[in-house]
């Protein structure tokens, strides 16, 4: 009798526990769907994702359900852990470079080579972008957006000082000197996260080959070319061209208030400026940053192409691939670029804003050499050491060698591990 009671109690307790821990099996059921969950680390972009979702629903009968995270590290940990669950993500934003390689090496991401072949053949994406999505000769994921790194400037300040956008580096330096003389801080900088901006600008504009060699481990951070770039950066810091690196004010607010006259940033920054009520051409403008070395044959253009990927074992892989294929097309990119108020990687997208459209034309037709943003080009351990080192460097400018040696030590450790 006692035993029977005990067994009953254990069964009841276990059932309660299972009921508490278990989930509905319907959640993970496969089969055809008319909407896809889209995990992303861009929670603030939800309205724009929803705008595009309406277009995709009309065009291909598939809507997007954006699930946004605000904290990038938390998001990355979530995606990594999701591969160990039954419900692998149908669509999710990720990073190119080592982060993408990590997923591919484990066989976790769906291949998209055929989608890329078709998009390139249709003229929907520049061939140059393909390499950032390539691992071992195959393509994975599709680009969410292509952000080109340009210089944003406060039009009111430029107009007040009678300044026009420069076409050479010498002109840019002259503008900085003039603004400083007028009591305006020429350039924005920070010692958190985007500490690489000026390193990237100065190195790609001085020696693009060296920039690429650094990202593949073929060159060292202690090489004379890199040291010379750091010296140039330090000279600019010493001249007082930059804002307080520890400022807690958002860069878009600083540009709006005239705390700084210029900010070098990806074209997605248009959306940030729009959010603080700035209008393109009226309140601010953009120009392509001139080469530091005027003798370079081509103009390097830094591009950041954040990928949208599909898990290899995604519950709705077929629909996700259909969505990815559609994402390349002009209707998708027209809707996306206009919703975000920025450029599209698709030259056939109809960007409604004239300034953005002409910049897009210039980049697509001009003699530009697309270069991967430093954030994606550098392997994560090297990037982390560099971001910290550059943050310390701009906070307390001095001899750059200790910083470069520290970054190189991280690079040596990383490349030794890669064999």
């Amino acid at each position, binding site marked *: 009798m*006692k*035993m029977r*009671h*005990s067994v009953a*109690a*254990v069964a009841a*307790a*276990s059932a*309660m*526990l299972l009921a508490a821990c278990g989930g509905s099996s319907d959640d993970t059921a496969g089969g055809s769907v008319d909407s896809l969950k889209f995990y992303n680390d861009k929670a603030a972009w939800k309205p724009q994702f929803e705008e595009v979702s309406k277009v995709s629903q009309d065009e291909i009968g598939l809507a997007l359900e954006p699930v946004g995270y605000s904290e990038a*590290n*938390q998001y*990355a*940990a979530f995606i*990594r*852990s999701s*591969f160990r669950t039954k419900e692998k993500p149908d669509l999710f934003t990720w990073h190119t470079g080592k982060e993408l390689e*990590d*997923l591919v090496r*484990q066989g*976790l991401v769906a291949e998209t080579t055929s989608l890329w072949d078709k998009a390139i053949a249709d003229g929907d994406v520049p061939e140059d972008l393909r390499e950032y999505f390539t691992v071992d000769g195959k393509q994975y994921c599709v680009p969410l957006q292509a952000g080109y790194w340009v210089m944003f400037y406060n039009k009111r300040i430029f107009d007040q000082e009678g300044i026009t956008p420069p076409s050479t580096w010498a002109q840019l330096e002259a503008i900085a000197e003039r603004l400083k003389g007028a009591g305006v801080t020429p350039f924005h900088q920070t*010692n*958190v996260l985007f500490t690489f901006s000026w390193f990237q600008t100065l190195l790609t504009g001085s020696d693009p080959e060296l920039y690429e060699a650094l990202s593949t481990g073929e060159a060292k951070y202690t090489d004379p070319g890199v040291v010379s770039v750091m010296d140039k950066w330090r000279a600019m810091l010493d001249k007082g061209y930059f804002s*307080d*690196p*520890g*400022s*807690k004010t958002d860069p878009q607010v600083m540009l709006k208030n005239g705390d700084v006259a210029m900010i070098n940033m990806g074209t997605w920054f248009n959306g940030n400026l729009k959010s603080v009520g700035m209008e393109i051409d009226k309140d601010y403008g953009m120009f392509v940053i001139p080469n530091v070395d005027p003798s370079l044959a081509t103009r390097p253009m830094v591009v950041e192409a954040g990928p949208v990927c599909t898990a290899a074992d995604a519950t709705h892989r077929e629909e996700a691939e259909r969505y990815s294929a559609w994402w390349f097309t002009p209707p998708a990119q027209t809707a996306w670029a206009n919703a975000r108020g920025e450029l599209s990687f698709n030259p056939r997208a109809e960007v409604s804003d004239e300034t953005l459209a002409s910049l897009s034309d210039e980049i697509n037709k001009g003699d530009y050499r697309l270069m991967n943003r430093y954030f994606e080009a550098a392997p*994560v*351990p090297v990037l*982390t050491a560099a971001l*910290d*080192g550059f*943050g*310390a460097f701009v*906070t*307390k400018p001095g001899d750059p060698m200790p*910083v470069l040696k520290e970054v190189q030590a991280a690079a040596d450790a990383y490349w030794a591990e890669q064999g």
Partner: protein
Amino acid sequence: MSGSLGTATTVRPPGSDSDLGERSAAQQRTKTPYEWPARAFSLPAVLLVALLLYLPFVWTTYISFTDYNGLGSPVWVGLSNYRDMVSDSVFLTAVGNTLLWVVGSITLPVALGLLIAVLTYGRRFGTLIRLPFLIPYAVSGVAVGVIWGFVLQTQGALGQVLEFLNLPGASTRWLLEGPLNTFIMIGAASWQIVGVNALLFVIGLQSIPREPVEAARLDGATGWTMFRCIVWPQMRALTTVVIGLSIVASLKTFDIVWIMTQGGPGRVSETLALTMYRETFVLSDYGQGAAIAVFLSVVTFAASIIYLRRQLSGRATS
């Protein structure tokens, strides 16, 4: 009736002259009729504790001996993560900063809390005086970091006030120089916690019996002598708890540092909890992050045990 006679040995009143060893053995032999069901009903709780507390710790300890990036399977690497950890200069900086936090969190918020409690206890409007110190505790650590970040950034609110008053320090880079930024952040954290410590000490003061205080007063004890010889010794148990909690909280300091400096510039203000977070979630080096987590857990556990043992043994002999 026969059933109740059968269990008579288990209900023998305490203090009877039977042999204790024999009684204990008898208790072990005799089971209560509801023992198994009782165990069964406690099973969910036991399973939940095992699942949510023991299992993660065991798993983290295992991961600390592996090379693991959150994908695929962990690869056993023995003590490699621990060797890397102790040879990393950033780890040593983080240990130093964490020690600063421990010392700072004991001296500032505990000492100030005690001072506020003693100075306001029993006074007219004492509660009103203490109230403003309690308000920051209602604010989250993240919000405290954001507020103080704006105040203390170079040319921030503090800088502007100093400049307006023509006082020195207007252009001091409070958050950009180490270890100054760590001291400043300890100050900001103290601002939040000092009111609670004061409240706890007031509870301690309220629990002191009147008799010894009045007896001491009759003997002529007042002021500092009264506090040192009569009040302070009777608040020892509470002080032990307050300091113990402060030690544990300071060892795991994370949120305020993450918000105010993110451990920078150049990782100069990192604490152990931040280093653990960066290794795990920024660098995706879960093995290294787990090694730091285990180290931090062991240090926290050891510090708590050593501190409490010393305090309790001191109390026992006093």
